């Protein structure tokens, strides 16, 4: 699989797609989120696996998003996600709340090709009360009493985007211990991946690397994006850029501030890079 350009990768995502994104501690592709903003994608239905962070907030701020299914949206130590909060208040996005293990479970159901999976907990929570797509049934294996348990439907996103450390010549990508990216790739129809670099060889032939690899069979497109997770950390490759996120959090408090940030960090940076 030959890498394509970042802009070409972003062009693969049509308006209205259901797009799963990992959170800020698990290899989000901020580079691809910025490219999606430049492409002007609209009506994305985002899924935070299991929570949402920086990439989600900038996509919402840029008007690309119509709904977010997630267990939380936050910028970590930099506080609440400002464009998410503003869009919710303004009624511009629909928020479908979940709880972290429910997001994982729904994706695991899709990964296994079953229509649902059960999950403990949740009963008595208003999350459940606001999820007409979740069902409570008596545990069929209970020996005494009703033992109600929640069943969650399989979730099969149209796309997942994440940032892997590297790809190999065969199109396998390497995410190391962040194996939830593998689960999301298995559960999604298409996986679009940015990487720091492409290396020779085949990760699956290397016993040391195979366990952190995702087989190319799940990968629909790869683009090289150096420092593509930034400001988020990438394994042992680079750290979290707290100052960048803090500045974002400050500027994005207002719509105008976000517009200025976006002009500078999403559009100008790309123009510079293209020179």
């Amino acid at each position, binding site marked *: 699989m030959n890498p394509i350009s970042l802009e070409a990768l972003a062009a693969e995502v049509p308006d209205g797609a259901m797009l799963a994104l990992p*959170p800020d*501690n*698990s290899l989000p592709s901020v580079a691809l989120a910025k490219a999606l903003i430049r492409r002007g994608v609209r009506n994305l239905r985002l899924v935070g696996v*299991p*929570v949402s962070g920086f990439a989600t907030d900038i996509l919402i701020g840029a008007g690309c998003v119509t709904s977010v299914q*997630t*267990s*939380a*949206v*936050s910028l*970590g*130590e930099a506080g*609440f*996600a400002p464009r*998410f*909060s503003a869009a*919710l*208040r303004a009624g511009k996005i629909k*928020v479908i*709340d*979940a*709880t*972290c*293990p*429910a997001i*994982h479970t729904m994706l*695991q159901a899709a990964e296994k090709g079953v229509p649902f999976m059960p*999950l*403990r*907990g*949740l*009963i*008595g*929570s*208003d*999350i*459940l009360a*606001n999820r007409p797509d979740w069902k409570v049934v008596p545990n069929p294996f209970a020996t005494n*009493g*009703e*033992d*109600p*348990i929640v069943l969650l439907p399989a979730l099969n996103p149209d796309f997942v985007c994440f940032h892997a450390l590297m790809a190999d010549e065969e199109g396998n990508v390497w995410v190391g*211990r*962040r*194996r*939830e*990216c593998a*689960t999301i790739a298995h559960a999604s129809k298409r996986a679009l991946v940015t990487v720091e670099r492409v290396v020779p060889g085949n990760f699956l032939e290397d016993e040391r690397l195979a366990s952190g690899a995702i087989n190319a069979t799940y990968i629909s497109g790869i683009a090289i994006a150096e420092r593509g997770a930034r400001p988020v*950390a990438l394994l*042992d490759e680079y*750290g*979290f850029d*707290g100052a960048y996120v803090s500045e974002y959090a400050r500027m994005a408090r207002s719509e105008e501030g976000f517009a200025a940030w976006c002009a500078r960090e999403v559009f100008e940076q790309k123009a510079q890079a293209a020179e």
Partner: protein
Amino acid sequence: MTEIKLEERITVALAKLILDPSAPPARHIAVGAASPMPAAACWLVKKQGNPVRLSLLHKRSGNPFTEGTRELFDLTGQGRIDLFFLGGGQIDGSANLNLVGTGEWPGMGVRFPGSFGSAFMYFMTPRTILFREEHTPRVFVEKVDNISAPGVSPPGVFRRGTAQALVTGRCVFRFHPDRARFSLESVHPGETVESVRDATGFAFDVAGDVPFTPDPTPEELALLRGPICDEMMETYPEFCTRVFGRKQAA
């Protein structure tokens, strides 16, 4: 020794609750995202020489998980996590937690980040210690606007445990799942039963004289400000700078 910071007091109170001999043993404790005080309390318990395994969710290097964030919830489902910590934008007198927001669902008043794993962890962990530094009537309410995770469950609903206690910036409450109410266990220096009652939107029980929450000892403070701060700098640089006065590397 400089003055005792409130965060240090809360941290030491949390550590004492972890070691509470009347509670089931905490052999493996998990700490979620954005929880610097619980993380520091766990480190304190560990650095004091108690045998305990810590799984810190947001540690970047040396992260304990190899299946991604799913593993914390699977571990807990398996019954391998003995103790977890939860906070809340609102907490009510029945220990219901609201991490979603005020007003109409899903938080059309003030939106909080969201429920994270609370709706699962609160059920599946034998012990949960609640913490929230801001102790005001807007946080501690009679009834939460939205329930992320309920404090107690009806008979027949699978649940391994409930809240053990609630530590705030003013006091320590003990939780009684049998009657779904808190009782006042200790007040921090400078507070009284009355000052706590004024700051609390829910009714709670008071039995006899309520002692003061003990000060952290010099040994505890030295551990917190030294080796524990070292452990936490990577994950919580702003907290370590603000509370322990540690300078961040350029």
